[in-house]
């Protein structure tokens, strides 16, 4: 329907799900490691609390990725991509299955052990989770690096790898960033700790996009000037300019607002920060989604209209979740 096929939906689900799981594992690991730097004589429980709270996001990503992969195993059909002519063919996608299946099984077993461990609120669990996240990230990175297998490591295979694993650092990390932003609404002390990591997360997203641009140099002759490509280039322009605003002046404003003596963001600044955050998520999801489909019969204005419609829906949903998070009870340590 409308040029969408089940196989392409499953490829999108695998890519997005594992990118989200990989990004959750990466940032979960970094947050749980930061507890050692917070205080010299006492461990910082706030970063551990944040690291444990990232686990549901990891599980959601892993669930979407695994279900999509299982579906792909039985439905993969002839594929071709419009926009970039060098994207995987069906035999290449199928050839990656013998590599991907053991990786998926390993990641699932690892996750099963992690969620089966008792005493999830104890310090020991918080220490365990560092190693779990580190191992889970390695698995997710390997899975996203092999979206297809050509049987030889040439320029095109390296492009597949770069075009695959960059999603952990881009769309996955943007989703984690927004999840943390919403989580921080529960208490001021969470904002102080979470906002402090925003510049680092933003830098990783910028580097992730650079990986994708560099990997595209390997297939420089592979671009085709289609309507889909024009729309995707428009969205990339939007997300870069919006990202410069969000990770620059707006992030600095948010950081200043949670420092001692800082003033809370009000009115226009608050609205602008929320709008920029929404544009960021919508844009990254849009290019990841559109990139997964070969034959979309839309004209440029229809693509753009759909993008604006999704933007409005995400903004409304985001505002609602933010409102709910502000009314959620803060973590127990806030009262200590």
């Amino acid at each position, binding site marked *: 329907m409308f040029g969408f096929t089940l196989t392409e939906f499953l490829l999108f689900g695998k890519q997005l799900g594992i990118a989200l799981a990989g990004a959750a594992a990466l940032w979960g690991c970094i947050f749980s490691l930061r507890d050692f730097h917070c205080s010299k004589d006492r461990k910082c429980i706030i970063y551990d609390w944040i690291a444990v709270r990232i686990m549901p996001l990891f599980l959601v990503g892993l669930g979407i990725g695994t279900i999509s992969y299982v579906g792909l195993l039985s439905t993969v059909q002839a594929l071709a991509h419009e926009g970039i002519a060098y994207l995987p063919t069906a035999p290449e996608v199928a050839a990656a299955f013998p590599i991907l299946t053991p990786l998926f099984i390993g990641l699932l077993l690892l996750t099963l052990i992690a969620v089966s461990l008792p005493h999830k609120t104890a310090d020991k669990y918080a220490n365990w989770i560092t190693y779990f996240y580190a191992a889970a990230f390695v698995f997710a990175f390997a899975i996203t690096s092999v979206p297809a297998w050509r049987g030889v490591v040439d320029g095109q295979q390296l492009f597949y790898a770069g075009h695959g694993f960059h999603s952990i650092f881009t769309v996955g990390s943007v989703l984690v960033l927004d999840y943390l932003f919403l989580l921080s609404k529960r208490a001021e002390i969470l904002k102080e700790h979470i906002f402090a990591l925003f510049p680092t997360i933003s*830098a990783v997203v*910028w*580097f992730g*996009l*650079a990986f994708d*641009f*560099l990997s*595209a140099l390997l297939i420089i002759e592979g*671009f085709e*000037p289609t309507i889909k*490509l*024009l729309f995707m*280039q*428009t969205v*990339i*322009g*939007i997300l*870069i*300019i919006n*990202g*410069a*605003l969000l*990770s*620059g*002046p707006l992030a*600095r404003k948010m950081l200043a607002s949670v420092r001692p003596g800082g003033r809370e963001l009000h*009115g*226009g*600044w608050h609205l*602008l920060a929320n709008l920029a955050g929404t544009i960021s998520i919508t844009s990254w999801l849009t290019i990841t989604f559109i990139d997964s489909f070969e034959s979309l019969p839309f004209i440029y204005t229809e693509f753009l209209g759909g993008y604006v419609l999704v933007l409005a829906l995400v903004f409304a949903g985001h505002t609602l979740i933010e409102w709910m998070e502000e009314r959620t009870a803060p973590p127990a340590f806030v009262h200590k």
Partner: protein
Amino acid sequence: MSETLHFTLFEKILILAGLFFFANVIYLASGGDFSFLYIAKGIYLIGIVILATEL
């Protein structure tokens, strides 16, 4: 909201790269080649090098 927005050099370069992506769309739609796309990506990668030196 009366305060002005201050951008660093890295952020200004990113904005320039973003504008070149828009120029690329217009140029391609007018029957042009991918020159603006390569320029946009080049500017972006220069920005990333500057970001790396700032870290």
